[in-house]
């Protein structure tokens, strides 16, 4: 089994390890629930070095990415990043990806664990291909600090000035020569940063951040909370919520700006009425007016949300009653073959359980990912 350069850190923290796409990774350390909640309230630290990274450069790189990637990169500025999809010729999702613009002719591409060769081969399949690709997957480590106190943590480490006007979906620095590339995307739905360093620099960086964050309530977080936070943020898990079927009519249609994709399917977010899930988190029928209309893609307990008088609130909502104990609600995504409306009630059924859930636009409200640096400073420092 493959390991990241931080494997000894995970073991010394008694991480509950499991195989994740061939990597031995921590599912959680002490409590997936507490790790999830810590990112909403304080700051969590994640090792996501199992992800794959490569640079692509050349005179025609923009044209190549325009052909293969679902977003229009014409207006992407240098030092900005963008989230989108690599699609095949049938509009099936090969993988979702974040692309960083290093310069007019050079981009840095992040794809999922083990997807580097597949995406690179897809790029090489275009006649236009005359680019240089350098695969950094085994040379770089990625450490993410997510949560509203991640700003104070990094200011303590790098100084406040670096973070003045640090915009959402922008990055600074580089990972060459022992430096750090730092971006702000908040893929958990909460305010946060991602740090890229050469692999041998990662253990010291991990220790430093844990030490500096000890007064800020920093919590090492495993992949279970990463996934549940991501679902709560309304973001898809690749090869589960998006995959080998025509992409379209989804909560992520912003990924295909200026392009119309025809799909026979409709994907929706849902939230249920208590914590109970289906027995298998990725299997189950969806029923509407007693007819099966599709299938369940994801079914997880979002531990930080509740319903009060039909309104969905999170532990960070201002109107949550004081001392109210939030138990969580079942949530996730369904893929159906008829259009539905927000507010519609559907039934999820796996043969053992029937769950009543509601189609919603947002799973977890009051997310902090997009808040300005100044507001985070005012409210969390």
């Amino acid at each position: 089994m493959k390991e990241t350069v931080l494997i000894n850190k995970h073991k010394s923290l008694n991480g509950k390890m499991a195989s994740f796409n061939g990597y031995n990774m921590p599912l959680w350390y002490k409590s997936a629930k507490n790790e999830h909640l810590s990112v909403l309230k304080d700051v969590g630290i994640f090792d996501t070095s199992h992800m794959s990274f490569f640079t692509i450069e050349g005179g025609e790189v923009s044209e190549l990415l325009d052909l293969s990637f679902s977003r229009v990169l014409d207006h992407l500025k240098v030092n900005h990043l963008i989230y989108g999809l690599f699609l095949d010729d049938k509009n099936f999702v090969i993988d979702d990806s974040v692309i960083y613009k290093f310069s007019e002719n050079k981009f840095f591409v992040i794809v999922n664990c083990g997807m580097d060769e597949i995406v690179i081969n897809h790029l090489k399949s275009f006649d236009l291909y005359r680019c240089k690709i350098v695969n950094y997957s085994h040379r770089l480590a990625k450490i993410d600090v997510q949560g509203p106190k991640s700003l104070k943590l990094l200011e303590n480490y790098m100084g406040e000035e670096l973070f003045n006007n640090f915009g959402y979906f922008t990055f600074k620095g580089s990972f060459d020569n022992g430096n750090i590339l730092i971006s702000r995307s908040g893929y958990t739905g909460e305010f946060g940063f991602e740090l890229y360093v050469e692999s041998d620099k990662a253990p010291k960086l991990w220790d430093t951040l844990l030490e500096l964050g000890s007064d800020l309530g920093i919590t090492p977080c495993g992949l279970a909370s990463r996934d549940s936070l991501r679902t709560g943020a309304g973001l898809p898990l690749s090869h589960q919520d998006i995959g080998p079927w025509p992409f379209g009519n989804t909560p992520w249609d912003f990924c295909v700006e200026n392009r119309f994709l025809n799909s026979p399917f409709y994907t929706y977010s849902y939230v249920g009425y208590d914590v109970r899930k289906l027995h298998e988190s990725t299997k189950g029928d969806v029923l509407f007016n007693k007819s099966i209309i599709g299938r369940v893609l994801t079914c997880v307990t979002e531990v930080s949300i509740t319903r009060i008088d039909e309104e969905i609130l999170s532990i960070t909502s201002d109107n949550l009653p004081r001392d109210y104990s939030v138990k969580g609600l079942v949530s996730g995504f369904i893929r159906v073959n008829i259009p539905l409306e927000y507010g519609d009630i559907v039934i999820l059924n796996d043969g053992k359980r029937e769950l009543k859930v509601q189609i919603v636009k947002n799973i977890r409200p009051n997310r902090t990912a997009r808040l300005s640096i100044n507001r985070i400073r005012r409210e969390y420092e």
Partner: protein
Amino acid sequence: MSSYPDELKYAISHEWIKKEGDIFIVGISDFAQNQLGDIVYVDFPEVGDKIEKDGALGELESSKAVSEINMPFDGEVIEINPLLEDNPELINSDPYNSWIVKIEAENPNDFDDLLSASKAKELAEGSV
């Protein structure tokens, strides 16, 4: 390393069973709660349910999965632990004081066939 109190017996599916007179008390082992992660809900059987050995005695909902609790031997459910309705996480923090159900066995001698602490520990360590 998970703990296995010697005074309890264990089922292959990681339930612990304690004998108190004619009544048997059932919970899940430290190893089982550790494997499940945060328990967020207990789906209890009904008091009065008659359940066969290895039948579903209820379900535990963790933040990641749903797992069945198995009946250690033929019997009837006579009580459920009301504390766990609002505080299911007690199973994680104190698995051996957080009983889930009390049962009356059809044949109390079935208790003798359950695993000892050392055998259950050996079994759990071999399964990781």
